[in-house]
């Protein structure tokens, strides 16, 4: 039985090879499961029919089917390179953390997810670019659809080292200057930065007409607190530390994390931003499916 890579454990899939191999395998499996393109537009190239829904423009009605079967269908067309996508990957030091050696670091997971996403978009002939950032923007690969773009994106991911602190709002502001045409912005980050500042930048993108998608990456160990009886937890970015007894604080911590996720989700929804919470043990295919 052939295993679909997009549905396997991310850490196991990562052992198969580099980012390219993993991403291709994941995308192959993902698309085979979908049987159709996840991103649709209207173009001159017909792809399929679908049932008419109230609000559809009448010019796309297939009159022949209506004449033959007295049923309403509209024609769908595949849009060609009309979507410009930028994938933003958080490369801060906090992303280089894993709660267990059996799992990928958040950064490794984000790289593979970004590569797979870029491959899907490029196969749809969407112009796709990449921005990596920590406390400043590290790599910028403008959105293109030409051959070799995916390789450049993968190279950009590989060439971005683990950074220091996180300044998402600065990267997003820089991005607004790079995205002249309306398109899609995908942010992959652990969101361990100031929520209001980051939301201000995301709101601005949304205001410019971009479709904004946020992948909130978390290691499972960041969701469920555990550890020795007493431990000093240190933030690798700010060196702030706190001594806690994990067993005592686990419940309150889980509640705090739940509230934080809910706050992000609520704020994103209010501004028309798609928010997805992804844990690093989630198969890549499931994470990609969140976009559909």
């Amino acid at each position, binding site marked *: 039985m052939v295993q679909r890579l997009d549905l396997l454990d991310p850490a196991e899939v990562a052992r198969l090879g580099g980012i390219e191999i993993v991403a291709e395998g994941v995308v192959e499996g993902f698309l085979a499961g979908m049987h159709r393109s996840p991103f649709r537009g209207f173009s001159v190239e017909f792809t399929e029919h679908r049932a008419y829904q109230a609000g559809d423009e009448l010019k796309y009605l297939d009159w022949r089917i209506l004449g033959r079967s007295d049923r309403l269908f509209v024609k769908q067309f595949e849009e060609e390179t009309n979507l410009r996508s930028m994938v933003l990957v958080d490369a801060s030091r906090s992303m280089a953390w894993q709660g267990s050696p059996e799992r990928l670091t958040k950064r490794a997971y984000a790289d593979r997810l970004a590569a797979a996403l870029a491959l899907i978009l490029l196969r749809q002939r969407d112009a796709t670019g990449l921005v990596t950032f920590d406390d400043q923007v590290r790599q910028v690969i403008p959105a293109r659809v030409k051959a070799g773009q995916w390789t450049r994106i993968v190279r950009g991911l590989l060439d971005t080292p683990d950074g220091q602190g996180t300044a998402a709002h600065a990267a997003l502001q820089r991005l607004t200057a790079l995205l002249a045409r309306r398109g899609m912005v995908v942010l992959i980050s652990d969101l361990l930065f100031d929520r209001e500042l980051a939301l201000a930048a995301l709101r601005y993108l949304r205001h410019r007409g971009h479709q904004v998608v946020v992948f909130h990456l978390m290691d499972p160990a960041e969701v469920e607190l555990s550890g020795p009886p007493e*431990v000093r937890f240190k933030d690798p970015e700010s060196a702030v530390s706190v001594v806690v007894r994990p067993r005592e604080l686990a419940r309150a911590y889980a509640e705090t994390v739940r509230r934080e996720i809910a706050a992000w989700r609520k704020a994103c929804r209010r501004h028309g931003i798609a928010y997805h919470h992804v844990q690093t043990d989630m198969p890549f295919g499931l994470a990609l499916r969140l976009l559909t």
Partner: protein
Amino acid sequence: MSFLHPLALLGLAAAAIPALLHLLQRRIPPEVDFPPVRYLSAAERESARRLKLRHLLLLILRTALIVTIVLAAARPLVPLRGGGAHQPTAAVIILDNSPSSGAIVDGAPVLERLRAAARSSVARTTSADRVWLMLCDGVLRGGTREALLGTIDSTRPGWLRLDLVQAIERAARMVNAQPVVGREVHVLSDLQRTALASGQAVVPSGVRVLALAPGRGASNRGIAAVTVSEGAAVIELSGAMLDNDGTPQPVPVTIRIGAGPNRGEIAARGLATPGRDGSGAATRAAVTVSLPAQSLAPGWWVGEAALEPDELRADDRRPFAWRVAPPARAMATPGAGSFVAAALAVLQTGRHTIDGRDVVISGGDLPSSPHTIVQPPDDPALVGQVNRALGSRGVPWRWGPLSTPGVLTSSERGGGLNGVAVARRYRIERAGSGEEGASDVLATVNGEPWLVRSGSVVLLGSRLDTAWTALPASPGFVPFVDALVNRIVMGEAEVAAAEGAPHVEFRTRGTDTIGATVFGPDARESDLTPATAALVTAALGGNGRTSVLSAERFAAEGFSGTRRADASGILLLLALLLAAAELGVATRTR
């Protein structure tokens, strides 16, 4: 509340363990990278109060848990109200059947009332109890309940005085040593005032002393002592000397020659009249009654003094003994000294001695008389010569070197020797390795022999001279010389007194009678005045340990101190609850 294992309370120190662990476990924790520290800080801020409360609650619960377990291990006993079987108890029942218990009060013997209470106490014991019975002889008798009841039923007034203070101390020590829950001493006595005069009993904590309150006292008088001297009997009376109006009343006394079944007709009568002291109380009365000495042949005689019968018959008669003997034929050698010569002259004048050589008092030489009293020579150079002469006479004593001054100590009754200063003396040493008989040493100075007797020879450590000892200048000198020549050198002991049923026992050496012991009740038994409750409480253990109870309360309180419940079970249950609470707080509040 008391504890069965009070030493276990030392474990209460373990209650400090949770707090100490909390302080000692403040070590440096391991450091771990954790990106979402901001979430942790927020969670900790929100939970700080709850966590502090939880820590405090856990500390209290754990400390309480240890305290509860330690208390349970100490087996606390809490008193129970109401009836119910008592816990295993060690009890000593003191049934005071001393002579005074034979007094008739309100038409019945005092002992009958005491026996009934003792029987009631023993009857309430169970097989788990450890019970002893103490009578006036001070012996602790164990045994089954039936055996003790039998002993109580057969108890009659004894002839020995019971010192209640000492008896209760012994009983308290006995019950305190028993590994049982309850410890009680039941005192069934007429609680004479005189029986509590020897101080205060030391009663360990945890021992209850229950005393039956004394009944009504009775007026009684008895014969305290009879001594014979100069052909007359001196009879001392004890007990109450006043009548109902508080007026001293003369007491008729009769003397019979012979005692017990052999006593003869009344030989003499007297009337003892008590006086009053400065406080108005009656003093001890005495009467001197002349004996028909002229008609008595030489030898040992026994007589009996008697009073008219009263409430206590045991002290109404007392035997006495004396020796009728001709005066000793005594003389002193010139070296004996002027004081000895003067004393013998006085004795001859009073016909205590007559001139003769049966007894010779010498001073540094050893005459060949039947009985010899030898002083050390005035010249130290002659000591060796006299020592050799003593050795040739078979006397095992020798004069040694001059020894330290001191005061005389003598067991001779009535002799005026005790406390007399001795400035100069030779140490009297025993020649050879033979053991000295206790009766051979009659007086000592600083623990060393000063007056010794061996056969018919008596040795003195000092010359009877004021340069050597103050004895010649003391009032007791002439009586001492009288005793020396008439009794001591003859090998006779004085008449001794002892406690017991009234009778006379003679002591013999070979075929000779050398002394007598007269038995009778202790004179203090005659005073039937009961002690006050306060005096009883103070003398028998003090407040909180001793209770003086009426007959009804005595029956109710007996063994009630042991109607206690072992609270360790409840404490263990409480410990279990505390442990469950601790577990709940430790797990559910995480």
